[in-house]
């Protein structure tokens, strides 16, 4: 390891050191606010070297990791998301439980795992990153120990994630047996199918599919989202999925999925099933967290459509879509968390009835977030969808494009249902709902920034698209 390697790795090193520091500080002095400040400081510090490292060009650190524009972009994105999630978690934890500080340690660990995934260039680092991420998430899902649903969610996530890890490992082993290497960049798909390689890659895709909750590996998502406390669900929906998309693109885009018809058709089927499955299953839900779970299944389907288009445009489209999805999901879960009280999360649709008349700003943020998820113009989600459609139509994938359009029309219905509930006139005699605590300044500020970001990206995304295109050049 050279000094250059160490400088390149600085963001990851800082991310790894912060949880240790926080853990030590907790051992001596339990202070919620101090822990939060240290966490945010660590995340900020990890963000700074991203700018200096950018000028260096791709830097391979051992065979395991590569620090290039792509990795830096995703690390930056995930660190930002973790930052926002930590800020949003603070008031929630303050209201909820007496074991608050450990949450941040786990959050930092999850972020570290996610960052490793974004920079991984090798099956070993892929698996390591995924496990760091998953172990942190198991605990986070079950964080409200007194709540049965939380425990149930935690167990479900543990069992299924472990199973999916087994699939992943077997797949890696098969690919290794065939290729003789575990580095991503040596992986080349041949037009003539090689059964061992195909099965190996298929198993890896099963593992990734579990993590992204793509149909038919989506069963866990609604229960886990419902059971997990809002900030933990936020992390599963954002940091976890974002980082797995990052490693997925890194692994499969250079391999050129189009050259293997079997994988291509299998992934197309998964994409279509996820889009329709997610959107159709969400229709029958009355729980906002479950709605968001099903909606995120559909959204990962859209990302997959972008990916399947192949080429630079595809990575740019998928990445931009992920950015818009992350911002909207953060905002939506942030509002859910802000509305939750010490007894339960505000996840029933009735909790949102007439919200606009009581908490107009929170309702406005949630409206913007849901409109963005639904893909309505003036919000980021619209341009994200447009970008993905552009890529898929450009590649001539009309069935996928048409499925995307059709399923997002179905999706409109349940987003609008929540919005309609928020804008409904509250009954006169009904007092203040039990689950509407006043949002704190921190929450309000973060959510406000997210809403502005969603609209800003929806009106003028040129800077971020420029950034994404520059980083794509690294990958292809």
């Amino acid at each position: 390891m050279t000094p250059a390697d160490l400088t390149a790795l600085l963001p990851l090193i800082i991310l790894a050191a912060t949880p240790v520091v926080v853990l030590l500080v907790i051992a001596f002095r339990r202070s919620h606010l101090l822990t939060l400040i240290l966490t945010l400081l660590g995340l900020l510090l990890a963000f700074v070297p991203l700018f200096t490292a950018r000028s260096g060009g791709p830097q391979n650190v051992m065979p395991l990791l590569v620090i290039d524009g792509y990795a830096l972009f995703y690390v930056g994105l995930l660190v930002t998301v973790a930052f926002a999630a930590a800020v949003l978690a603070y008031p929630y934890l303050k209201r909820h439980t007496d074991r608050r500080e450990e949450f941040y340690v786990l959050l930092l660990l999850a972020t570290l795992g996610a960052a490793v995934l974004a920079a991984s260039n090798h099956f070993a680092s892929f698996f390591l990153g995924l496990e760091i991420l998953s172990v942190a998430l198991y605990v986070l899902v079950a964080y409200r120990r007194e709540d049965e649903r939380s425990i149930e969610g935690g167990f479900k996530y543990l069992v299924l994630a472990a199973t999916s890890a087994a699939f992943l490992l077997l797949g890696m082993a098969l690919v290794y047996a065939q290729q003789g290497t575990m580095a991503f960049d040596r992986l080349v798909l041949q037009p003539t199918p090689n059964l061992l390689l195909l099965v190996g890659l298929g198993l890896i895709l099963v593992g990734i599919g579990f993590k992204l909750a793509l149909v038919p590996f989506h069963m866990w998502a609604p229960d886990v989202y419902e059971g997990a406390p809002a900030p933990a669900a936020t992390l599963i929906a954002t940091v976890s999925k974002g980082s797995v998309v990052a490693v997925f693109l890194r692994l499969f885009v250079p391999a050129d999925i189009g050259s293997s018809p079997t994988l291509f058709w299998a992934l197309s089927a998964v994409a279509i099933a996820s889009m329709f499955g997610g959107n159709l299953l969400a229709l029958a839900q009355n729980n906002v967290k479950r709605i968001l779970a099903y909606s995120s299944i559909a959204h990962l389907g859209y990302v997959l459509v972008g990916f399947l288009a192949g080429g630079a445009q595809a990575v740019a489209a998928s990445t931009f879509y992920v950015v818009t999805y992350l911002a909207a999901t953060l905002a939506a879960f942030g509002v859910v968390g802000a509305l939750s009280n010490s007894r339960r999360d505000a996840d029933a649709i009735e909790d949102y009835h007439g919200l606009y008349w009581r908490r107009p700003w929170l309702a406005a943020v949630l409206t913007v977030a849901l409109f963005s998820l639904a893909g309505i113009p003036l919000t980021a989600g619209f341009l994200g969808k447009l970008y993905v459609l552009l890529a898929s139509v450009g590649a001539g994938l009309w069935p996928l494009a048409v499925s995307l359009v059709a399923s997002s029309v179905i999706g409109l219905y349940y987003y609008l249902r929540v919005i309609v509930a928020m804008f409904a006139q509250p009954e006169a005699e009904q007092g203040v709902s039990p689950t509407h605590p006043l949002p704190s300044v921190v929450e309000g500020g973060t959510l406000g920034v997210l809403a502005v970001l969603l609209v800003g990206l929806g009106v003028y995304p040129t800077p971020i698209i420029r950034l994404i295109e520059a980083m794509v050049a690294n990958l292809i």
Partner: protein
Amino acid sequence: MNQILPILVLWLLAGGFLAWLAGRWSKPLARWISLGALILHLGALAWLGVQVAGQQTSWVLDFTWPWIPQLGFGIHLALDGLSYLLLLLVDLLGIVAVACSWKGIQERVGFFHFNLLWILAALTGVFLALDLILFYFFWEAMLVPLYFLIGIWGHKNRRYAALKFFIFTQAGGLLMLLAILGLYFVHEQATGTYTFDYLQLLGTRMSPAVGMWLMLGFFAAFAVKLAAVPVHTWLPDAHTEAPTAGSVIMAGLLLKAGAYGMLRFLVPLFPEAALRFAPVAMVMGGVGIVYGAILTFSQTDLKRLVAYTSISHMGFVLLGIFTWNLLALQGAVMVMLAHGVTTGALFVLVGYLQERMHTRDLQRMGGLWSVAPAMGGVALFLAAASLGLPGLANFVGECLVLLGAYVHHGPIVIVAAVGFILAAVYALWMIQRTFAGPNRHGWRFPDLTGREAAIMALLVAAIVGLGLYPQPALNTAQRALETMQQYAVSAQEMASPVQPSDGGAP
């Protein structure tokens, strides 16, 4: 000078924001702000009209700015005679919508006017945009505020109506989006340049099958907006459940956006496909005229009745557009303007009645003339305008459409002419059931107030003006319509030089 085009859009957006903020402190202030914003907007338009009068080019103003160059999206706004007329309609009906909500809307006044002005801003954008993505952007952007307008301030069944409206129009819009993207790549394959710019996309070569599919994508969006039969079912619900201002805007402006889309984009971009599709579209128009009129009879809800007349009138527009000769096109534009003003006025009148009677049920009305003679007079006048009485605006438009279409499409014109008779029957029958006859239910309520009378006077003056002296409006639109015809014809010749062009039909 060209920079005024984006300002026309931004002005209304800013006005909406200001009204929202002001509404938190004072309800009247919000109303005055939005009224003031619209009057200034109208003033700017009038000034613009004087400045560009007499210019010989079709596009009098043109504004371009790179928006998201990586994806080939640009901001391209341009003004011609057709957009100018429709912008005038936007401002006129916008002022009417604000004025007629002055007393009726008492809840969340600021947010109401925010939504109202944003719809108008998006419509302004729709009538100016020449970049297809920008057009789609504005096209969809008007849905959300309109959805809120219906969903929050509407009548009893508002949530269902708002949802239905939203999903119908969104589904149509997304099909158009796919077609836009398809056109983008077809154009790239033909010429090697990626662009969404309307003027560059004109005359793109494509195979007949591709052209037909893309044309159908556009047609889906525009037909839903235009409420052409059989995709009209959202209209009666949405128009009936919306607050008066929402109904005025939907009937007066939203339906016109669909017609405008066909005129501006659908036929010029896909002349060949439109020609092959024209018989179907014209039959849809003819069916719409008659079917809308017949359905009008069976209504017992006054507002729903007015809503169904729109379907009938929009049939004429569809017929006129797909006839595609200058006479019929002029007629279609006139019907758009006339219907906008007339139906807007009818909805305002229904709003007055509802505010006073708290019902729209025709069976509980009758004999209202003795109660409110001024209102009755206005109603009779509007009914006469709606049935196409010569000398009033609708007659000019519908007559021109029939004249234009008669040359090549006699049978459809005969069917459409039946619509004229039906219109006379339902319009008079409506008066019969509301204002005429004995006052069996003992209604007592005040006649038109000064504010209400002023709104009506404005609209009645517009109807009479357009009816007696339509020439200025026709002249304004003429060059724009001729240019669009040229686009279509030249593109068609480029695509298939052997095909004879018969008298300007597409």
